[in-house]
């Protein structure tokens, strides 16, 4: 029988690296940092034989600017890092967003602030979805909750980046990056679109290509801002992705992404065993955020609670979505501590009893 599926047992970081090769990445630039160093290691091993550039840069500042250059030259390019390194990239990311360069960025979130811990965290939510760098811009932010999704979102990320000429961020965490799971690589047709704006050398039949983020006249700058705003509106209209678990008859709702969503899934089951009609909404895109769907669900459920591995960040977006219709709470652990589904269930019950 002909084998059509390639099934492997891999770490999230490795799955993502393998996926990038299969997605036809032309180049990867990175700098080691736990818990995502496997990416550079995997690519350093695999890329030379399979085509493509892999380069260990002198810093994350350098690697993000190498991404800028390669993306501006029309290449399919990406980088990955973890929280402190990702912070270092923010200026470059702002330039990339302004110059509208398609590329894939990955932050395998670890605990902070500061040097923090190498354990998993969701403390970089604000940085990921509210800017991070300077100026008015947005990344498309994908939040995988499994090794499989870490691989799948590489393909999706490159496609969305090209489609909107916008950087895409995969916001994962140290647990999903490090854990091993089954991952299936499907045979796919690679979608590539022409990039006539890229700096590949000015041919006589076209004007010179310029990659820039500088618009010194206020009118020109505002025109670029408006163009970006329009693009972001388009993205919000087309690209909201989320998953719902047992929401049909839910009376209380958990909202969680990534690793927290895995825990919350189990929490919902525990609550259901106790006769509590709990449901889960898992945002898959953190930008654009499923505001509308949550607003709808607020007409159905009595309250919502987020589970986040932070002090309460996404909860602000859930509150915006719900707009006061129902009470919204947050439960979180920090420092790299991963709460058990039982712990979450207990606190979920405490919360909804306190507001009902």
């Amino acid at each position, binding site marked *: 029988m002909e084998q059509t599926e390639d099934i492997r047992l891999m770490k999230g970081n490795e799955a993502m690296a393998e996926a990038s090769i299969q997605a036809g990445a032309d180049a990867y630039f990175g700098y080691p940092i736990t818990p995502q160093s496997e990416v550079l290691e995997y690519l350093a091993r695999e890329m030379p034989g399979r085509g493509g*550039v892999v380069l260990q840069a002198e810093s994350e500042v*350098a690697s993000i600017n*190498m991404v800028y250059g*390669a993306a501006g030259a029309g290449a399919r390019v990406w980088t990955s890092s973890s929280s402190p390194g990702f912070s270092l990239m923010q200026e470059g990311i702002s330039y990339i967003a302004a110059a509208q360069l398609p590329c894939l960025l990955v932050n395998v979130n670890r605990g902070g602030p500061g040097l923090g811990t190498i354990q998993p965290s969701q403390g970089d939510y604000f940085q990921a979805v509210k800017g991070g760098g300077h100026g008015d811009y947005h990344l498309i932010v994908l939040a995988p909750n499994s090794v499989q999704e870490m691989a799948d979102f590489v393909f999706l990320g490159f496609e969305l980046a090209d489609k909107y000429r916008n950087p895409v961020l995969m916001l994962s965490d140290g647990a999903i990056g490090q854990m091993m799971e089954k991952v299936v690589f499907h045979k796919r047709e690679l979608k590539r679109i022409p990039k006539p704006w890229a700096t590949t*050398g000015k041919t006589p039949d076209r004007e010179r290509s*310029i990659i820039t983020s500088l618009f010194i006249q206020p009118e020109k700058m505002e025109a670029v801002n408006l163009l970006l705003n329009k693009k972001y509106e388009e993205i919000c209209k087309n690209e909201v992705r989320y998953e719902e678990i047992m929401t049909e008859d839910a009376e209380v709702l958990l909202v969680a992404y990534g690793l927290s969503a895995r825990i919350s899934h189990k929490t919902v089951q525990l609550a259901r065993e106790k006769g509590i009609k709990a449901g889960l909404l898992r945002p898959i895109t953190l930008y654009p955020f499923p505001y509308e769907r949550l607003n709808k669900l607020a007409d159905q459920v009595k309250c919502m609670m987020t589970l986040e591995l932070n002090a309460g960040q996404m909860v602000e977006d859930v509150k915006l979505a719900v707009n006061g219709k129902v009470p919204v709470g947050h439960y979180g652990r920090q420092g790299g501590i991963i709460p058990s589904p039982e712990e979450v269930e207990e606190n979920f019950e405490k919360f909804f009893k306190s507001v009902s």
Partner: protein
Amino acid sequence: MENNEIQTPDCLVENGETYDMVYERPHTLTGTRMHYCPGCGHSTAHKILAEVIEELGIQGDVVGIAPVGCSVFAYDYLNFDMQEAAHGRATAVATGVKRVLPDKYVFTYQGDGDLAAIGTAETIHCVNRGENIMIIFINNGVYGMTSGQMAPTSLAGMKTTTSPYGRDTKTMGHPIKVSELIAPLPGAFYVTRQAVHNAPAVRKTKKAITNGFKYQKLNKGISFIEIISNCPSNWKMTPLQTVEFLDNEMAKYYPLGDIKVPSAEDLK
């Protein structure tokens, strides 16, 4: 309407006589009027660069990177593909471009604040990796764009807006000689220091930039071309005085000439 374009006539008519054009602006310049101050070296350096690219016939194969600094608008004047880069990051951006387009001619065009202060790490490592690009390093001894603050290259005792009593090397460090610093690295193939303040200097700079492009095809590493450049506005001098200052002060500390040249063997 603002007329920013410079017109180039086909011939010159004067007193009823028609003269043929024997010299014209290279087509690798767009014709947009440059914003540089009178007597600034940037415009001369731009023109040399454009001339070389035209003469080598490589307009379609060039990608240039100009970071933040006075020359951030270089793409307005240079008629080939260009990327603007963040302050200090031109060599990282150039690395990204060259690695995915290895057959193109890639160069950076950076100021001294850019290359020798905020971008020092990128400079050193780009040279150390021996990226096959040309770095054009405009050393005017000050931060031009932000109006005359001290640069890492400002001479000892030099008065700038942030060293109003003169650069005190005890507390502000010494003017850094980047060319001498990077020349020993194996990734540096060709290192030279030139100027653009008089005709012989311009000729030599043109030769150096021509070499820089030609050497890229050898894939043997960095061509690093430092250009000592006049900055009348921030040196607080007339253009003529800057020529003297360049010869008498700048070139004393930063001697003009080749620092590392490839051997006949290297050029094979």
